[in-house]
């Protein structure tokens, strides 16, 4: 990943942006992270079918370019908040695949010791303030983190879905962030469905990004399956945030390959819709672009193999880890 060392001071936006622009390895690294996320989702899917992942889980396969592209624009100490569909948010920000897989499996070595599960992952060390099982919750968490970020020379990013833009949190927080000129980027992963319901059926006006206009917040609609497009839009937004330009809304249009959650066969999708989106798989798009940009096929393949292997190792390690023992470590209500 493109994470750079923590910097507590403010910096001019331009050089940082340009530096990234011309870093040849950055997009290959980013592609590697996308591959890892895809492998992760597929591994979790298999484990779910085997009964190893419990309750429910929400896979983000098909949406990988969004968190990865956004996190390319971030530093390691910037903040993000994610959703119950948050594996990609966590992995893109730096959570270790093994710790994340172990969390899904409810193991003691999970990033939250097995207490959180798929929907509620927190990884403060990597700046992940939380994943939120409550639709819209991530918007507030990142807005608040931006209050800290402003004092720390950092920025904050909220990931959320199209459905979340109809929630109270969306409205109150966007207004709040603009009023206070907070360094926050609102990243809407518009995958055109909230559970079984098409976005346009429940989203008045049908234009998500335009909602930011009501608050005079700058907004952009991006092809969320194009890593380069996401990363460019995010870079601009992050630089605006860092240079005291306040919040931005990015609408990244994308698609989830699986159903909403483990129990959803996604029969509500029109014929061919999935096929059309599979043809625009963000991994394929990225692969082709890398090759076109002169990265060798061997390098790309190596990254893919590595991702598969890393995930395999992570899965095995997670499966081998013990379940937490509540008697050994009962857990406390309060800190201190």
């Amino acid at each position, binding site marked *: 990943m493109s994470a750079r060392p923590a910097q507590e001071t403010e910096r001019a936006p331009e050089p940082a942006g340009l530096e990234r622009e011309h870093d040849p390895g950055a997009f290959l690294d980013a592609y590697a992270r996308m591959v890892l996320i895809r492998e992760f989702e597929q591994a979790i899917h298999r484990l779910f079918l085997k009964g190893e992942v*419990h*309750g*429910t889980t929400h896979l983000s396969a098909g949406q990988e370019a969004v968190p990865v592209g956004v996190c390319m624009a971030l530093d390691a100490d910037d903040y993000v908040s994610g959703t119950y569909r948050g594996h990609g948010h966590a992995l893109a920000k730096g959570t270790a695949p093994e710790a994340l897989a172990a969390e899904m499996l*409810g*193991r003691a070595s*999970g990033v939250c*010791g*097995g*207490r*959180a*599960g*798929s*929907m*509620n992952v927190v990884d403060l060390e990597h700046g992940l303030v939380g994943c*939120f*099982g*409550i*639709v*819209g919750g991530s918007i507030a968490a990142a807005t608040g983190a931006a209050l800290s970020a402003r004092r720390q020379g950092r920025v904050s990013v909220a990931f959320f879905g199209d*459905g*979340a833009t*109809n*929630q*109270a949190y969306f409205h109150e927080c966007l207004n709040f962030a603009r009023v206070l000129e907070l360094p926050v980027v609102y990243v809407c992963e518009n995958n055109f469905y*909230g*559970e*079984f*319901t098409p976005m346009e*059926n*429940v*989203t008045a006006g049908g234009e998500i990004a335009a909602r930011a206009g009501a608050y005079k917040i700058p907004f952009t609609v991006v092809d969320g399956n194009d890593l380069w497009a996401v990363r460019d839009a995010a870079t601009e937004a992050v630089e605006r945030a860092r240079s005291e330009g306040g919040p931005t809304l990015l609408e990244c249009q994308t698609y989830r390959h699986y159903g909403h*959650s483990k*129990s*959803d066969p996604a*029969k*509500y999708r029109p014929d061919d819709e999935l096929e059309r989106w599979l043809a625009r798989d963000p991994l394929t798009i990225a692969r082709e672009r890398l090759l076109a940009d002169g990265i060798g096929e061997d390098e790309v393949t190596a990254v893919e193999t590595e991702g598969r292997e890393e995930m395999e190792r992570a899965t095995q390690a997670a499966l081998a880890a013990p*379940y*937490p*023992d*509540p*008697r050994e470590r*009962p*857990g*406390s*209500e309060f800190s201190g």
Partner: protein
Amino acid sequence: MSELEFRVAIRDALAEELERDESVLFFGEDVAAEQGGVFAVTPGLQERFGANRVFDTPISELALAGAAFGAAATGTRPVIEIMFGDFMALPMDSLVNQAAKLWFVSNEQGSAPLVIRSAVGAGGRFGAMHSQNPGTWLQGIPGLKVVAPSSPADAKGLLKSAIRDDNPVIFLEHKRLYSIKGPEPDSETVPLEEAAVVREGGDLTIVSISKGVRDALQAADTLAGDGLEIEVIDLRALRPLDLATVLTSVAKTNRVLAVEEGPRVGGWATGLLGSIAEQGLHDLDDAWIVATEETPIPYSPSLEDEFLPNAETIVESVRARLRTGVETGA
């Protein structure tokens, strides 16, 4: 005897009331979609009653509840679904400051006859934000009825009563009950304000609600093997609270255990014991609670299983308490 599935009982109650009364509406997130909600409770209702009466909404819990309030105040009987009980915190203002207050504050000009169905409870490895029991958040709100059925028959009869009731009713359906089966109801409706003695016995009264009642019944079966006759009371509602039925039972058994899927502090179980202490202290030889730890609900199976009360922990607690007679929490 034909058996009724809990989720079908809910579906049937809704369908029958939609059929019976034109003013009943049903809406929520993904409830009208083919699947009929994430727990497959309400498929087919939109086809049958039309999109004007059964419809999907945006993910806007506050608007859902607020719309239900305004509709209920003006001649409609909305039933809405708040998908998970944990989300009840989002529309809380509308419940507390709108629906609950209309009747009293308007000087009884009118009330808000609405029902909020919601899936509650833990045990499904859904984690801390999809497993809570919001009943205790709402028990202290005068003007709200808070109901939670423990069997398919009650689910049907109580939901029908809730829809016909002129007051706002929070109707909590435990996720672990959706797939259970039980006898068909033997009456059209079940009153919202009467606790049920679901098993009789003279040695100890166990009081619970929702899934806890099934656990208590199962525990009572086991304890019968120890020679203990357990009386089990299903509260059915946390508000209004049918204290009389509990007091009558305790006057007979002199011992009471309340089983709550939730923390002790601020829970309904301690409150119930307090009300018994206030009104029936001299009947009381022992009173205690089986509840959860005072933490959020953990995800991992090993943690969640240890966290939750069940038939076994009830049995253990009864054996320990009656054997030793020591007055410490179980």
